């Protein structure tokens, strides 16, 4: 997520990060290794749903960005710079 | 992991036989191999048969004979001839193509279609993987197919493929919404996502089939059928294969076996959703004729041979039902004209989604209406109860509660509130 200038690459990085958190939640909800019970899986369900929603909105923003700048290189979004 | 019915048999066999090559490898590997072969057979053979059937039926509808040369008078080895022809074609890829993704896309489509067969019960106990969320997992795996289509369209490097691929992906993704809703309607009626259990409770006669459970499920069957037709890119929703419009859509640049993978996946998916419709709505492996079903069940209970007979007969019944539905799909393809992409999306978003939502609402409210309109409480018009009602209820151990119970919700008393908790009730179920 920090190495990409392509806006969609950044979105993919965000998905990976949220996925990592999900694995953590589900792993600790396993009955052999954790005490979360079913709560961990519910939390991870919510994370999945919210991550998908966030990807949708972020993609809409990227499309607007493309419509205005004709590029997806986020380094070009420098109109508010200094 | 979950229990494999055939796997345990295989494992026991291998352990008892103790043959040298076989016991060096973990027996789960052998079980997995056997399962994979069987599922692969059930994946490939229907595709084989239905490709021939399509050409024959298409020919008859168009007032000609169809294939008649290969394999006798009916040309039933035509698919084999097609396969041989396709194997010996040159394997080329366009220069502008992204080589890795170009080669990978057909495999993604085939793998997702094949993996869905793992959860399909062909008869009582004849299922590769028994999972209690079987229907949901099967639909989830089917949704990976979209990715293969998009990658195929993109990686071909030509604009026809790209347009075809994107249209196709938009269509398949949009139709997953009504597919999910209408597939959940029988789940609401049955109370379980396990496909084997859904069929088990359609035992006992034609009236127990879920399609006849309520008017909502009756219409849900037709909506489900239409939606799966669109999800499989079959006519009249077949823009991707619209040879007259897009040269071939996402599979323009593919030749030989790679092209045939797409079609293998398509025909296998057709069979899969037909079998799914048969399982969810049409009674699965029960014939619906009570004498036959009862005879089979009693034979199965009494002897192992009877169980085997039930399973084989049930498998034939499912194959016949699924085959009939595939025939209807082929029939529709060669009868109706093709829809434009905007008509396809309109159908989905403006007609099928509200329809499926309304049917879902109706199917959920139906038992409640029935409960309130009869003198004694009954959940369905017939002797049919969802599985949630059939599982023995757990009764809360009635604790000896002293005098008055002050039930609190987070420390507040419930004396003047709407919510109250009874002291010996069965509580939350």
């Amino acid at each position: 997520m920090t190495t990409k200038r392509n806006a969609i690459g950044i979105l993919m990085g965000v998905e990976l990060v949220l996925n990592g958190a999900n694995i953590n939640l589900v792993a600790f909800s396993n009955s052999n290794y954790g005490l979360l019970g079913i709560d961990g899986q519910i939390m991870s369900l919510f994370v999945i749903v919210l991550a998908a929603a966030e990807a949708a909105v972020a993609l809409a923003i990227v499309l607007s960005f493309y419509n205005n700048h004709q590029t997806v290189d986020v380094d070009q979004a420098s109109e508010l710079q200094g | 992991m979950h229990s494999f019915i055939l796997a345990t048999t295989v494992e026991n066999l291998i352990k008892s036989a103790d043959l040298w090559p076989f016991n060096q490898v973990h027996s789960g590997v052998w079980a997995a191999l056997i399962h994979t072969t069987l599922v692969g057979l059930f994946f490939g053979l229907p595709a084989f048969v239905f490709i021939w059937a399509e050409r024959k039926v298409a020919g008859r509808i168009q007032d000609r004979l169809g294939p008649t040369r290969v394999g006798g008078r009916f040309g039933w080895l035509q698919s084999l001839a097609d396969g041989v022809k396709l194997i010996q074609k040159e394997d080329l890829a366009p220069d502008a193509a992204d080589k890795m993704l170009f080669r990978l896309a057909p495999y993604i489509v085939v793998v997702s279609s094949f993996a869905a067969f793992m959860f399909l019960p062909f008869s009582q106990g004849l299922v590769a993987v028994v999972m209690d969320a079987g229907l949901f997992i099967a639909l989830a795996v089917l949704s990976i197919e979209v990715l293969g289509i998009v990658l195929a369209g993109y990686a071909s490097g030509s604009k026809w493929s790209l347009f075809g691929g994107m249209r196709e992906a938009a269509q398949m993704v949009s139709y997953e919404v009504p597919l999910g809703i209408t597939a959940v309607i029988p789940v609401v009626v049955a109370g379980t996502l396990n496909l084997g259990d859904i069929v088990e409770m359609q035992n006992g006669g034609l009236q127990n089939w879920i399609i006849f459970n309520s008017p909502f499920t009756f219409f849900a069957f037709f909506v489900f059928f239409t939606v799966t037709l669109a999800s499989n890119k079959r006519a009249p929703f077949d823009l991707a294969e619209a040879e007259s419009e897009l040269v071939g859509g996402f599979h323009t640049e593919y030749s030989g076996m790679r092209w045939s993978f797409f079609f293998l996946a398509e025909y296998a998916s057709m069979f899969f959703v037909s079998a799914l419709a048969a399982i969810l709505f049409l009674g699965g492996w029960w014939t619906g004729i009570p004498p036959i079903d009862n005879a089979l069940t009693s034979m199965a209970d009494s002897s192992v041979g009877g169980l085997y007979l039930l399973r084989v007969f049930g498998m034939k019944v499912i194959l016949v039902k699924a085959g009939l539905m595939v025939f209807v799909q082929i029939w529709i393809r060669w009868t109706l004209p093709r829809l434009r992409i905007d008509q396809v999306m309109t159908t989905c978003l403006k007609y099928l989604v509200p329809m499926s939502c309304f049917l879902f609402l109706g199917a959920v409210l139906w038992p409640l209406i029935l409960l309130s309109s009869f003198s004694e409480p009954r959940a369905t018009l017939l002797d049919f109860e969802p599985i949630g009602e059939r599982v023995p209820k757990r009764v809360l151990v009635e604790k000896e509660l002293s005098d008055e119970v002050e039930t609190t919700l987070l420390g507040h008393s419930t004396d003047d509130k709407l919510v109250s908790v009874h002291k010996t009730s069965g509580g939350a179920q």
Partner: protein
Amino acid sequence: MSELLFYLYALIACGAAIAVVLSQNVVRMAFWLVVSLSSVSFLFFLLGADFVGATQLLIYVGGTVVLLIFGVMLTSSGPYKTIQNSPAELALSGMIGLAFLAVISSSVFSVNWIENSYRLAGAKEHHDGEQLKFGYNDETEGNTTRSLGTALLGVRFDKDYSPEAGKHAHSHGGEEHSHHDHGEVTVSTGYLLPFEIVSVHLLVVLVGAAYLARAKRRVDVQQA
């Protein structure tokens, strides 16, 4: 056997994630993301969370990645656009990533897992009461759909049902599940409110994304 599978798929997931970052072409990045997400889904199945694993496949792979690829198609300005990163940027980002990895690794390795596993095993005996059995598989083997569904509707029968409920000395994380000595019973709250909030959230997202991405007249670059 399941350990071997775990290591294999964990390796694939991490490897594919690294390939996402190192890839030059956006569509290949999407493909490696698919590989990573699918292996994570398989890890979920291994952990006995069937429903969550299937949801991961359905929503992430079948939805989000397709969405991302659509975004790539709609915004690409050349067939195989590659983005060249300068070495300074790579070094800086690499340092940030490594710092984060160090933080997480140190927190993971500072937990005494062996000691905690005894505590977990001890607690597990309390938590076992009788297991509810619906369907073929046990709750611990993946039959989680029923518990998830009822918990989302606000009914936590996995907590309120055990006959051991009266003997619980400690509460399980989060829920107010206390039992007082004179026979009070409290009911766990479940997740109905977050469920409804998420539904409204999704509606808002649907409307908002459709509005943001509507077809506008393209701004001419010459006028800028």
